């Protein structure tokens, strides 16, 4: 079995949950490896090494000047091409790339690879060629089953990522850490980077500031003051 996860430039907490989930699947199966697949600048290796220290087997980092500035469509193109070469049984994504790719990258990559996708997964079981995920939704929980290979985006509620052991940290240095270009994974420069991106940032505008606040302190007796404040503000 082969396990995978993909992400963006740096290892954020959401990705740590995905790596932990991947490690647990491999451990439960008693076979396989966890490959860390990412798109980003060469310095992204540093943060990805934490995943190796946690127990992943190797890194495949796509790093190319022509991939800079990739938005969702472009990023999903590059990652899908990179993943084709890895031939994973299961592709795991973190819930949210830190403030960039939102919860959307997994579904975009799944569409490109023509694989089933299960998102927002808070519990994950993989057995006999099937993945079963418990998806958190606005309305409750859905249990969804898909045949492997499949793409799963995990929620941060799925687990507590392990801390790398000293042995893990020492061992990480000698694990394979491959940096490849767009051409190496078969990605098309026309569909990558700024050229392949279909969204643009026009302007940065500040968020509106809040009005000055009031502070009060005390016990049950200040409930009167709170009520008066709400009435004055006409929110009741």
């Amino acid at each position, binding site marked *: 079995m082969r396990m995978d996860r993909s992400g963006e430039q740096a290892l954020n907490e959401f990705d740590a949950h995905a790596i932990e989930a991947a490690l647990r699947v491999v451990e439960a199966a008693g076979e396989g490896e966890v490959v860390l697949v990412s798109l980003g600048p060469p310095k992204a290796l540093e943060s990805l090494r934490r995943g190796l220290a946690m127990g992943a087997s190797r890194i495949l980092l796509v790093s190319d000047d022509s991939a800079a500035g990739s938005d969702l*469509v472009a990023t999903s193109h590059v990652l899908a091409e990179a993943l084709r070469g890895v031939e994973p049984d299961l592709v795991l994504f973190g819930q949210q790339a830190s403030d960039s790719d939102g919860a959307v990258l997994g579904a975009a990559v799944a569409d490109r690879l023509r694989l089933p996708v299960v998102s927002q997964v808070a519990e994950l079981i993989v057995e006999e060629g099937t993945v079963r995920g418990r998806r958190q939704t606005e309305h409750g929980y859905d*249990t969804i089953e898909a045949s492997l290979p499949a793409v799963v985006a995990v929620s941060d509620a799925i687990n507590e990522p392990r801390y790398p052991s000293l042995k893990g940290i020492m061992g990480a240095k000698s694990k394979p850490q491959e940096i490849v270009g767009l051409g190496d994974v078969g990605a098309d420069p026309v569909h990558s980077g700024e050229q392949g*991106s*279909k969204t643009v940032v026009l302007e940065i505008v500040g968020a509106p500031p809040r009005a000055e606040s009031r502070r009060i302190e005390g*016990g049950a007796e200040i409930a009167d003051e709170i009520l008066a404040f709400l009435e004055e503000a006409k929110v009741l």
Partner: protein
Amino acid sequence: VKTLVFLEHHEGRLLPGPLGVLTRAVQLGGQTEAVVTGSGVQELARTAGRHGAEVVHVADDPRLNAPLPQPRVDVLAGLVTRGGFDNVLFAQSVLAADIAAGLAARLEAGLNWDVVGLAEREGQLVAKRAALADSIHLEVGWKGTPRLALVRAGTFTPVETGGGDSAVEPVAVEVEDFSTRAILVEQSLAEQTGPSIEDAEVIVAGGRGLGAPEGFELAEALARALGGAVAATRAVVDAGWYPYSTQVGQTGKTVSPKLYIALGISGAIQHKVGMQGSGMIVSINKDGNAPIFEYSDLCVIGDLHEIVPKLTELVNARDNGA
């Protein structure tokens, strides 16, 4: 300009989030149409006319019964291409995010999400997008069409236009093989009394400071008195105190009620992202240095277990006396 709005529904009603997006799309002008997907949704779809949809495309098929994204990507990809839509708008949800992302990849189309504003400028659609944990807003646009957007819950309020039911156009449902390989095997819906946190004008939210799962009884009583809904932080949802469907924050829902009362919530950035658009924020916390006080209108430093029951009593007395 032709705009298509994806209308999500749950338990036989169209959700307010997408109807708000539809309202905004109608205001922006051009030809505004909607799409409803599901099984047995013909009658439901018609009601979108009341919010200004000129035509509602209905994909009605047993394969669309479960709320799964991939068969819907297939349906929408065909509809958007055949219909020549310039804009395809969604209200952000777990389901809609997956559909929009799959559609973006399928059509090589730009997708902007966390959208908190939509405007038209010189014939171009421009969106406002919250970024960097909401510390800034970006103005974003698209290269080429279709332009896809996921709009945050609560951004636009649905407004009925006074129109009647809309014309319904059936959509042929053709589903890719891989789109049917994920199947729904079980669904457990959270129990809901009173308004949902997306619809509520008043939200009472609880965090770790409630002390125990039972502490939510305080929040529930105050919410009942105010006619509001109860929300929770990620910390207490992760701890199993309250269901995920009520989670507010970066990994939960974004809400913007008129009044948000935070009980025992420290207010980490990931929570702030989900509620800072609220009209009025009142926070009750023992710790005078809690970060939530930095963005509250009324900061109450004290023991919520003493203050909240009294406040609930006062609100109830006020309503009975009025």
